């Protein structure tokens, strides 16, 4: 039997030691109880140092997770995304109202109204820049793969960076398509024909949008897979891995060629 231990993978009596203890510490899920004591196997590997190494890794990991949880910068991004949406729909509404006013009397008040809407519009840009800046910091990999804007939207839908990191790729692929997915499912249930949506928010990405229709599903699947890996790295380690976005770009180039 195979078991994931904090210091590596156990396989029928032998252990492959992890080359990144923090990573393996965070990723030692076993659905069933392990039939031996982890420390016995560990002491064969680390000897008397076992507990001091375990303790050092545990403290480092815990400090990072706690710090991240306390700052909750993901919540800040989510609040900003929602505020931005609200401002967008307000601006639309206000512009309509401005037109109504203008049709009756295009006077000083209308110009003043227009000026104030313009202020709100430019404030929108400030919020967008703030979102981009924080996304770069807390989710560098997701940002690199889909861009800060779409990344922030995915984060908003997921509810937290932790949840986004826990989503399987298949879920990430349809984030934002929930409405149409439910519609399609209920049509199918009633025995009607329906096309299940293949892509949610990430469909807006140029790498998907600009492909011929029949290739979009494939691209979306690939991208969602990389986003899922990226989100996990972002949540647990926060370091950028350039390879992910590079692979996405190569896939796009290959798909757009033939």
């Amino acid at each position: 039997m195979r078991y994931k231990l904090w210091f590596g993978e156990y396989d029928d009596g032998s252990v492959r030691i992890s080359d990144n203890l923090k990573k393996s510490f965070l990723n030692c899920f076993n659905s069933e109880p392990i039939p031996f004591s982890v420390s016995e196997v560990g002491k064969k590997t680390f000897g008397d140092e076992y507990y001091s190494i375990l303790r050092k890794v545990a403290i480092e990991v815990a400090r990072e997770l706690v710090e991240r949880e306390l700052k909750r910068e993901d919540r800040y991004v989510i609040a900003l995304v929602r505020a931005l949406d609200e401002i967008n729909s307000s601006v639309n509404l206000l512009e309509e109202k401005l037109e109504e006013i203008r049709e009756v009397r295009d006077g000083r008040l209308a110009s003043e109204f227009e000026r104030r809407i313009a202020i709100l519009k430019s404030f929108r840009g400030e919020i967008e820049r703030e979102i981009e800046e924080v996304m770069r910091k807390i989710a560098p990999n997701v940002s690199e793969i889909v861009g800060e804007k779409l990344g922030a939207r995915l984060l908003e839908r997921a509810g937290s960076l932790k949840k986004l990191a826990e989503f399987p790729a298949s879920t990430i692929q349809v984030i934002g398509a929930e409405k149409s997915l439910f519609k399609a499912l209920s049509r199918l249930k009633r025995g009607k024909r329906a096309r299940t949506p293949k892509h949610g928010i990430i469909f807006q990405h140029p790498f998907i949008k600009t492909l011929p229709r029949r290739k979009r599903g494939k691209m979306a699947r690939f991208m969602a897979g990389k986003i899922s890996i990226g989100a996990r790295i972002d949540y647990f380690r926060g370091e950028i891995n350039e390879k992910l976005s590079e692979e996405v770009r190569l896939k796009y180039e290959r798909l757009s060629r033939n």
Partner: protein
Amino acid sequence: MRDFQGTEIMHNLFIGSYDGKKRLFTKSGYPPHYGERKIGDLREWMPQRSKLGALFLKGKIVRFERDMKVLYLGCASGTTASHLSDIIDRGILYCVEYSAKPFQKFLKLAMERKNIIPIFGDASKPENYSGIVEKVDFIYQDIAQRNQVEIFVRNFEFFGRQGSEGLIFVKARSIDSARDPEEVYSDVIEKLESHFKILNTGDLLPYHKDHIYIHSRWRG
């Protein structure tokens, strides 16, 4: 120490009178952690702040040996864990907590104590730390959750071994606020009996109201 008349009832655990009152202390080479007094090398264990402290001060004995491996579920900022760490000074104390704020303070403790392994995680998901925690001699649980008995049992399934002991604190209101506390308690005990031999149970009055403790031994 001048005015302290006491006895060591367990390794590093002292009970006795000090300024005219019965008090509990652990012998500790470490500074105070939660505002408790330090008299000589004894840290006072405040029973109002810790259920285990209350239990000991009431004269109940749950035996910890100095080299025990203990899993502590719901360590919060480490009030109780700090004293337990003094007692099991040659053992290991694995501590699980899922709330960041108290755990931040707990980490200060973990950094000074060589026998504490901190785990920021959810006690209801032992799978997630199954590759970290070894088989232990004792599981301590103080988490006030509706499904806390199931959580307790699941942790024993992962980390218990024949003869491991456990201590669980139950607050009737956190399990079912509508029902009579006595009924809730007997339900809990009945549930535990299918996995454990019950060693002792009782209240924590006058230090903690509406709580009972159940000390038990895992059948495996």
